[in-house]
């Protein structure tokens, strides 16, 4: 039994850490919130997701504002792909609530565990940013939709011109990313970046900043459902929102150029442990179901 005061203080502290480490490693801290709230404090997963998704809006909108000013974010690419991510987010949120109400929350736990472990793997093998082959000539569709642009790369000291390709496939990935975001209450930025840089051949920097820009709107679609549905409890959600905002603020502003690999390894280890625990919890819940 955790008292309300203790919950607020502990969750605030953990969320600051999650936001800080998350932004240092380049992954939203929100992914740690649901496992911590469910495994540590016994919060039902639908309420944990409701608390987490709110913090996802906060971190995305906060950091996106900086990049939009820098003009690296491609607003048109973002707005267009948001059609897919927001539709996916609605399906994901409805699916999660359906599973929980049908006594199938073990599926949500298990999927969450798999995503945690995969995120750790993704951090480990993350390739060089310059690896992406940037497409420069627009195809018919990206020309029609005006999904192209250029930005000044301060590291390379030159203007990078780019245009999207394979837009329908990119939309498909974005729909999945939105669905995962609504299903688990996470930003699913890694999948959005994959859709833009690997599938649509946009520059890595444009992909990451535009992904960040889209995460907030995507999360708003599922937050609307969780909030109005009554799954965003102010007591549960408040310390998470403040903590993650404070943590990621310091992560991006103060420590912008420190990315020690030991910190990355620690984070990967945390993701792996939480992932295994979530899957274990899922298996326990599914067995409890079978025993009935």
């Amino acid at each position: 039994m955790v008292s309300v005061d203790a919950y607020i203080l502990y969750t605030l502290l953990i969320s600051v850490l999650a936001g800080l480490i998350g932004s240092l490693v380049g992954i939203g801290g929100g992914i740690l919130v649901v496992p911590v709230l469910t495994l540590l404090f016994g919060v039902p997963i639908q309420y944990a997701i409701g608390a987490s998704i709110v913090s996802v809006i906060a971190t995305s909108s906060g950091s996106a504002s900086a990049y939009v000013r820098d003009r690296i974010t491609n607003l048109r690419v973002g707005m267009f792909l948001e059609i897919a991510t927001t539709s996916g987010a609605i399906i994901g949120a409805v699916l999660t609530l359906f599973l929980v109400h049908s006594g199938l929350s073990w599926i949500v736990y298990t999927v969450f565990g798999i995503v945690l472990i995969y995120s750790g793997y993704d951090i480990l093998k993350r390739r060089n940013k310059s690896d992406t082959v940037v497409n420069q000539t627009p195809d018919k569709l990206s020309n029609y939709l005006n999904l192209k642009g250029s930005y000044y790369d301060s590291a390379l000291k030159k203007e990078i011109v780019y245009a999207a390709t394979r837009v329908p496939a990119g939309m498909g990935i974005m729909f999945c990313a939105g669905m995962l975001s609504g299903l688990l209450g996470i930003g699913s930025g890694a999948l959005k970046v994959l859709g833009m840089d690997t599938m649509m051949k946009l520059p890595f920097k444009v992909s990451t900043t535009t992904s960040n820009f889209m995460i907030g709107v995507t999360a708003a679609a599922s937050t609307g459902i969780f909030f109005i549905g009554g799954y965003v409890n102010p007591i549960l959600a408040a310390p998470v929102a403040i903590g993650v905002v404070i943590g990621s603020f310091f992560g991006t502003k103060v420590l912008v150029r420190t990315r020690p690999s030991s910190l990355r390894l620690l984070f990967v280890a945390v993701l792996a442990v939480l992932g295994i625990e979530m899957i274990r919890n899922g298996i326990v819940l599914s067995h409890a179901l079978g025993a009935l």
Partner: protein
Amino acid sequence: MTEKVDLNPIIAKILRYGVVISSVLIALGTALLLAKDTPSGFPESINQVVSEDYGRPTTNFHELLFQVTNFDPLGIITLGLLILLATPVVRVAASVFLFALEKDWKFVIFTVVVLSILLFSIFVVGPAEAHAR
């Protein structure tokens, strides 16, 4: 392209102010919650918060206004959460006008579609889920 409007600073401002205002409200509400004497019937534990659905946000605007003007901690947090939720929606709504100013009608349509999806989730799917509980 002679009368090109610069979208970026306006959108950046909406995002920044939305997050700052909501964060301040949520922090203020939380501080009040910790500092104030707890009212009778306040949950002893986090399990009780969940089982009683304590502090479930009101969807009645007048009730929320009453709570906030009375410095009710949970009402202030709820207002902050609502502003946070509204921030991306306002950003998308502003984009509709900004694309219209640029006379980029294709993107006016795309943005209206995104806005409709967001409003659909808040005003149709959300209430349906609340009803289904």
